[in-house]
């Protein structure tokens, strides 16, 4: 069958399969529908004008594993200088069709259009055919970002100046301010989900756990799942079972990431929820009604072991790394136990840290010295429980380059 140029021109192939779809003049509606073979043929040959084929891109390498599928770097065949990230939508073992989590992520990404949020270009499909039982696989196609923050931080050769750190944190908070203004919670803040382009533009990524929230006017509390956020970045309210949470959960993560800019590895690497709470208490002080009046209402407050008589040591323990007093002060306002007292993105952006010398400065120049893409997925594993751990990058081994950028593949 000849490929059509427009869906409207698509010729219904009645003539090719005489008798297959009944008489066109039949009066009963059901006698005029296609049979299975016709339908399969139709699905295979219909040129969905709203959904391009993945063939327009050429896979380069695997760069990660998202919440619901693998991520590949790919080249746009029509513009070889243009690279994209393609995230496969995993649909095996899906009893209920296209996963609701993927639908959520797509909807949220379509809503969010901002300099500091990863840009969804389109959704592509593979050709439906007999081999996939006429079911396409779908890929989310994003603008490609050369690095992720976890990858950059795990490379000792990447050195951030104070001004550059300010720029990273400022962009991170700008992104959060934007998504929170649009009533979206990210719920998976971590260094690996913070992408940075070679020009130094930060992009929040992986909205696979994100969801919309509403400030409940009705007084009915939200009942969100608290099984979100990677353990090391999980705020105390989630660890204590809070289900009526909001933007502060992302600000806690932002604080953890900000500290990591100096420590170079996650600051609280618990191996269980209990352990994580203990680590938090050791850094931020004991979790008590005195510092957090409503904490007693949380489900797990009485069930978890709450370390007592811990002094708050945020500044004390981080000063050796941070040095800058403004940075210490901002972190002290982000890593606040009581979510209602934690700084929001707007407040944090107004902090003197961003408005005193050295001012936030462009990252592009520093990143220009590094021509290898750095992703956590591609980096050697970071060892746990080692605050000062600096992992050595392994030599790059890749045959593919794009404008000087090599992908480390192990």
């Amino acid at each position, binding site marked *: 069958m000849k490929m059509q140029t427009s*869906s*409207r021109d*698509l010729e*219904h192939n009645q003539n090719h399969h005489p008798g297959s*779809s009944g008489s*066109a*003049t039949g*009066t009963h*509606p*059901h006698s*005029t*529908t*296609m049979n*299975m073979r016709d339908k399969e043929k*139709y*699905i295979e040959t*219909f040129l*969905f*004008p*709203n*959904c391009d084929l993945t063939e327009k891109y050429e896979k380069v390498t695997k760069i990660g594993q998202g919440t619901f599928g693998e991520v590949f770097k790919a080249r746009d065949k029509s513009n070889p200088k243009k690279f994209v990230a393609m995230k496969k939508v995993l649909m095996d073992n899906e*009893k*209920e*069709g*296209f996963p*609701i989590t993927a*639908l959520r992520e*797509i*909807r949220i990404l*379509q*809503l*969010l*259009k*901002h300099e500091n949020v990863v840009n969804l270009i389109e*959704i592509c*499909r593979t050709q*439906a055919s007999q081999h996939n*039982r006429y*079911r*396409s696989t*779908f890929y989310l196609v994003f603008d490609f970002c050369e690095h992720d923050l976890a990858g950059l931080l795990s490379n000792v050769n990447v050195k951030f100046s104070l001004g550059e750190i300010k720029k990273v944190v*400022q*962009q991170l908070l*700008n992104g959060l301010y*934007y998504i929170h*203004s649009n009533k979206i919670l990210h719920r998976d803040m971590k260094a690996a989900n913070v992408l940075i382009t070679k020009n130094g533009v930060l992009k929040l990524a992986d909205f696979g756990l994100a969801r919309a929230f509403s400030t409940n006017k009705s007084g009915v509390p939200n009942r969100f799942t608290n099984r979100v956020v990677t353990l090391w970045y999980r705020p105390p309210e989630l660890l204590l079972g809070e289900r009526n949470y909001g933007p502060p959960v992302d600000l806690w993560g932002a604080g953890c990431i900000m500290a990591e800019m100096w420590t170079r590895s996650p600051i609280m690497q618990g191996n269980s929820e209990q352990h994580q709470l203990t680590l938090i208490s050791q850094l931020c002080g004991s979790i008590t009604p005195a510092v957090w009046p409503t904490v007693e209402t949380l489900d797990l407050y009485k069930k978890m072991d709450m370390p007592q008589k811990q002094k708050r040591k945020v500044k004390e323990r981080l000063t050796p790394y941070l040095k800058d*007093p*403004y940075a*210490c*002060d*901002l972190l002290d*306002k982000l890593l606040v136990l009581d979510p209602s007292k934690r700084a929001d993105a*707007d*407040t944090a*952006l*107004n*902090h*003197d840290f961003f*408005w005193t010398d050295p001012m*936030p400065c462009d990252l592009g120049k520093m990143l220009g010295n590094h021509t290898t893409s750095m992703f956590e997925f591609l980096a050697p594993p970071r060892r746990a429980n080692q605050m000062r751990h600096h992992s050595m990058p392994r030599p790059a081994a890749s045959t593919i380059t794009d404008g000087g950028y090599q992908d480390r593949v192990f």
Partner: protein
Amino acid sequence: MPGWYYDKKELRHSPSAQDGIDYKTEMRYRKEGARLIINTGSKMDLGYNTMATGVVYYHRFYMFHSFKQFPRYVTACCCLFLAGKVEETPKKCKDIIKTAKSLLTDQKFTTFGEDPKEEVMTLERILLQTIKFDLQVEHPYQYLLKYAKCLKGDKQKLQKMVQMAWTFVNDSLCTTLALQWEPEIIAVALMYLAGKLSKFEVVDWMGRNTKHCRWWDMFVEDVTMDLLEDICHQVLDLYSQSDAPIHPDSPPLHSNAKQQMPSLRPSNGQEKTLSPDRPPSVNAKGPPLSDVPQFPYQTFTGAPPPAAAYASVFPSSMAGPPGGPPPHLSGPPPHIAAPPPAVFSYVNHPPPFSTVVPPGAPPYFPANAPPPGQPPQHRPYYPPQ
């Protein structure tokens, strides 16, 4: 990027039309599919947004495929299944099929094939790539409530009017209006219609200024009376149609049906308050208010279309032979123009409109955010310790 709005000429050249299905039959298929979505959704206690989203997917789907290629009831189930997930009110595929089956004759259910669930699953991917993964759909309901909050006047009358407009929005899902006009416009038109029918004339509203001739001038621009009347008629036409199986070649139903209908139904004395914050549910079997038109979906099957009576509020010239204005109106409002001579003579898309108040979407970056690199105007002082 494909817009999801079509002019009447495009609607007449749909894939189904090119596939040999006449316009009237296609409109019936669209209506039947929409009603299955609404009836199935209602039975499963799904919210009005979920059902409306499913219906919009359904109408969009058939702007790319013909009803001969994809039988309408399977598509309807698939649209409801997807809308359930998108609107965060997911229902199991097998339960949707089960409920739909209970609402369909065995013969109609045969289009679901031997493995109905597989059929819906395969179709879901086709649906997604057909609708360009444009999952987020807005409906007139939210605008209806928003606009109603601005209108001044007798509270009870206003509530009745909103209730009636709400029912018209429900019914508008059975038309292709969602393929023609933005939800804001549909909300304005159907509130206008409900205002006429419930004798609620809006004379004052909040936020009024001298440039506003009509309350909706605050919300939409360049909406002509002709356009509003056209939208109202597309909804009212539903009530003058019979659902009895129509032979594709049979002559169109008598266009005078509207004016042949009996007058307003007597009040049944029921009274129920309507709070704009808690919109009535579509799945209410009938609108709660006594003199609100009683035409939930179930009623347009076969039975004489009760709401057609409301056509009488329009100047007689619209309904055919002159009959004079209804007694409750002193005369046709001067701004009501004569209807277009034939329903579908209007092939040019009416002028574009722009919303005066962009309502929520698309997202924008709030103006009070400090732009990167620039100090905010009010910066609190944090003394570092």
